[in-house]
């Protein structure tokens, strides 16, 4: 059997080497190449950090990250506390609702906020109609707008991780502090919050990294001075100005290095801080409080406020999709299916591509993810931690960086980039952690003695896997499959670099429609169409395996 494990391990490592390590090394090497002399050295990096412009974009991005983290934390903390501690009716529905932004593409949020809060958006028009303001208020175009939209998008990460942290705390730890004389606030800051910190950090790091990877939202809001956006522009539009192109590549590498280092640092810190659970013999599932009526009302209002913000995205997109000329009017007046007629000329091709690419990526994902999960949870093969580690790293790796490195690596030498297979391949690599996490979590929940019993009865490992493990893992795996599919379906950052005429996916179609001539109605209708698909998939996930989703993403205590 050891030989079988070794074989699996070898094959998996070969895939990782070819599709992760090899292309990324190209990116690194390319970033060292001098545009004029074609020689290798650190000159590009020196130029990058000497150029006040790039330094500015770097600082801008850092500030944006901090602001987004601050905002999501401030708004997420009370929310997480209410969800995990208060006995409130309708909490479950609400929790499902605020998960929505995770799976929605970031550009969907940006579009709907422009319709609502743009210069000529609903709110401004209303305010001007009422005579409250003379000139439109700039809600969005600037760092505040980015903070606004990215915070909405990322709030679920903070809420999920914090509430998992709160729930995991053994109630008696807080009771002990109460008995020792600590009242509410004091107890929260000395016991509850420190104990939830490892979980919080796991979510916070994803939030913090986001602005280093999201190039599209700043562009939609007309901001270019952010690291990922300028990388995108430099690489995608400057074929002639080689210096700018290389600055773009350098900034991609810089973002990637920052993301990966922060990710690793936080992981190491979490590992160190992860408190071994000490308690024994408690059966309670976290502490539940019956809040006094005033706090209850306040909580409901707060939850409602967040829910409205989150729901605005699909609702506004929907309204714009079914109306025409929703410009310069606070509310749509002319209802039509025109947009849908238009998108259905273009969309079937896009949809076909999206389905084909995501579907193929999913097949790769299962073929790789299942053996990988088995190897990581059930064997002692050397290097399995490293394998897990590299794959998990892809969560933090900017999509642009992957796209560029694939373009560099698979153009000559191994000319995969000329074949459509490059699209599902890149999706597979980028979204693999989503499936692996889920497979991993379901494997951990599967009692090993069930498999051992089969082996004792005379079944081989392979037979055991197909007759015992797989049927029992099915639910968790299915959730993993759907999550993977959703995330692959809405992917744009990598695909935007790799697509060629005829390979456009639905997200790329949305982007192009917006980019071409501000065809807002059409882009909005497409985005709405996409949200509907994602939402249906999400419902399936929620129905089948809400619990397992939590186990894989919520309470993993830093193993995001």
């Amino acid at each position, binding site marked *: 059997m050891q030989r079988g494990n070794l074989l699996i391990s070898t094959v998996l490592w070969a895939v990782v080497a070819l599709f992760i390590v090899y292309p990324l090394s190209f990116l690194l090497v390319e970033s060292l190449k001098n545009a004029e002399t074609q020689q290798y050295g650190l000159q590009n990096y020196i130029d990058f950090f000497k150029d006040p412009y790039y330094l500015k974009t770097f600082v801008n991005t850092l500030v944006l990250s901090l602001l987004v983290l601050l905002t999501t934390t401030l708004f997420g903390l009370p929310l997480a506390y209410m969800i995990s501690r208060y006995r409130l009716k309708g909490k479950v529905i609400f929790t499902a609702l605020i998960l929505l932004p995770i799976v929605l593409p970031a550009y969907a949020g940006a579009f709907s906020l422009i319709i609502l809060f743009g210069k000529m958006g609903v709110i401004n028009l209303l305010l001007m109609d009422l005579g409250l303001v003379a000139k439109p208020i700039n809600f969005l175009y600037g760092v505040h707008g980015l903070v606004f939209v990215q915070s909405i998008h990322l709030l679920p990460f903070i809420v999920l991780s914090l509430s998992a942290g709160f729930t995991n705390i*053994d109630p*008696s*730890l807080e*009771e*002990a*502090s*109460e*008995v*020792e*004389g*600590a*009242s509410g606030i*004091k*107890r929260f800051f*000395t*016991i509850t919050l*420190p*104990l939830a*910190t490892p979980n919080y950090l796991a979510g916070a790091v994803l939030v913090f990294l986001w602005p280093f990877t999201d190039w599209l939202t700043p562009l939609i809001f007309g901001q270019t001075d952010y690291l990922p956006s300028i990388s995108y522009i430099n690489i995608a539009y400057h074929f002639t100005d080689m210096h700018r192109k290389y600055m773009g590549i350098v900034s991609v590498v810089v973002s990637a290095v920052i993301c990966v280092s922060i990710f690793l640092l936080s992981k190491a810190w979490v590992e160190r*801080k992860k*408190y*071994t*659970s*000490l*308690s*024994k*013999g*408690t059966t309670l599932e976290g502490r539940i409080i019956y809040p006094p009526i005033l706090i209850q009302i306040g909580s409901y209002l707060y939850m409602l406020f967040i829910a409205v913000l989150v729901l605005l995205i699909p609702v506004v997109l929907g309204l714009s999709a079914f109306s025409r000329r929703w410009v310069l009017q606070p509310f749509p007046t002319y209802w039509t299916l025109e947009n849908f007629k238009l998108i259905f000329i273009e969309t079937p091709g896009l949809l076909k591509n999206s389905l084909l690419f995501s579907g193929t990526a999913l097949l790769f994902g299962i073929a790789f993810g299942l053996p990988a999960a088995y190897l990581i949870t059930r064997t002692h093969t050397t290097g399995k931690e490293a394998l897990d580690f590299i794959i998990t790293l892809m969560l933090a790796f900017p999509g642009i960086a992957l796209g560029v490195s694939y373009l560099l690596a698979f153009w000559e030498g191994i000319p995969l980039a000329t074949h459509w297979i490059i699209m599902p391949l890149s999706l597979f690599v980028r979204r693999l952690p989503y499936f692996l996490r889920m497979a991993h979590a379901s494997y951990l929940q599967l009692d090993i003695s069930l498999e051992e019993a089969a082996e004792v009865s005379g079944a081989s490992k392979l037979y055991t896997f197909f007759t015992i493990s797989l049927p029992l893992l099915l639910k968790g795996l299915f959730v993993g499959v759907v999550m993977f599919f959703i995330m692959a379906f809405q992917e744009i950052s990598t695909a935007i670099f790799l697509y060629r005429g005829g390979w456009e996916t639905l997200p790329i179609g949305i982007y192009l429609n917006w980019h071409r001539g501000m065809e807002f109605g059409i882009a909005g209708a497409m985005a709405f169409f996409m949200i509907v698909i994602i939402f249906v998939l999400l419902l399936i996930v929620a129905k089948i395996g809400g619990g397992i989703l939590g186990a894989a993403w919520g309470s993993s205590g830093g193993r995001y």
Partner: protein
Amino acid sequence: MFIKIENLYKKFGHVVAVDHVNLEIKQGEIITLLGPSGCGKTTTLRCIAGLEKPEEGDVIIDGKPMFSQGFVPPSQRGIGMVFQNYAIWPHLRVFDNVAYGLKLQNLPRTVIHEKVEEALTAVGLSGMEKRYPGQLSGGQQQRVALARALVRHPKVLLLDEPLSNLDAKLRERMRFEIKSLVRRLHITAVYVTHDQAEAMVISDRIAVMETGKIVQLGVPEDIYKKPANRFVADFIGTTNFIAGSLVEVQLDKGKAYLQTDFGRILCTLADSFQVPSDSTVQASIRPEEIEIIPSATQKENVFRATIAHRAYLGNFLYIFVTIDNTLLRVQVPYNLSQKEGEEIIIYLNPEKCMILP
């Protein structure tokens, strides 16, 4: 009365955890709640601490109503508590765990250091201040919990199986340690344990609980010698139950004759005893109270028995004897000369042979 619990009633869903418990505890007294798993000991303790709000009943500490007339939160009750699962904060070092409550009182640093040091020494943990709980053994963690509960010299100390995870030697030492500390500081303590020997040693009075009710409250000796019912007799120590039917009840003397499979026995009726309608009852006599006599000097309660089995238990001997088909367990000195299969004469003292409800 320092602590007064009146008519305490608490249920979880349909499970009644505490069923109309009344308990009065004097200042400086150590009361033990003793009973089998799930009988409501922890829940009672948590109601006293204010960690649980009962459905009914009053909790009064030091003359101040804690519950029912308003509700005083745990943080304002001035109690120390050792939790059944220790509840040591994993993110704080041993020192900070113990110092937590003192810091809340805004005491000067030197005083805090002194007190923490004193408490840690008392539980035998000095030198471990810098460790995190994850680096301690189960027993050490339990002692941190103990130090934390004692360090503020609270008026009331609640201990939920505080020694369950220690080895026999240390447990014995800690019992003594807790008792002398409680005495010295005039602390009133409620102690929860499964362990009847521990309850006997540490308590001034014991409250035996069964399914949420206190079935007997008394000094350890009374609990052992005059169990209120069969449950208590069985749970505290070991005993022999002899089934039979009442044939002659002398309520004025508190005595009755019991017709058993092997003959008539004169027994004492327990205080609260009421004759059941079918008059079948059980008498209880402890193994060490069955006497072995050289010859039948008395007329009553004397029987010939055969030794079925001898078990050597160090400083004494357990023998299992049969009278007709009834098996009795008798504790005798280790130098008993009779062998298995031989016959002895036993005497069941009517004073010690109790008919229990």
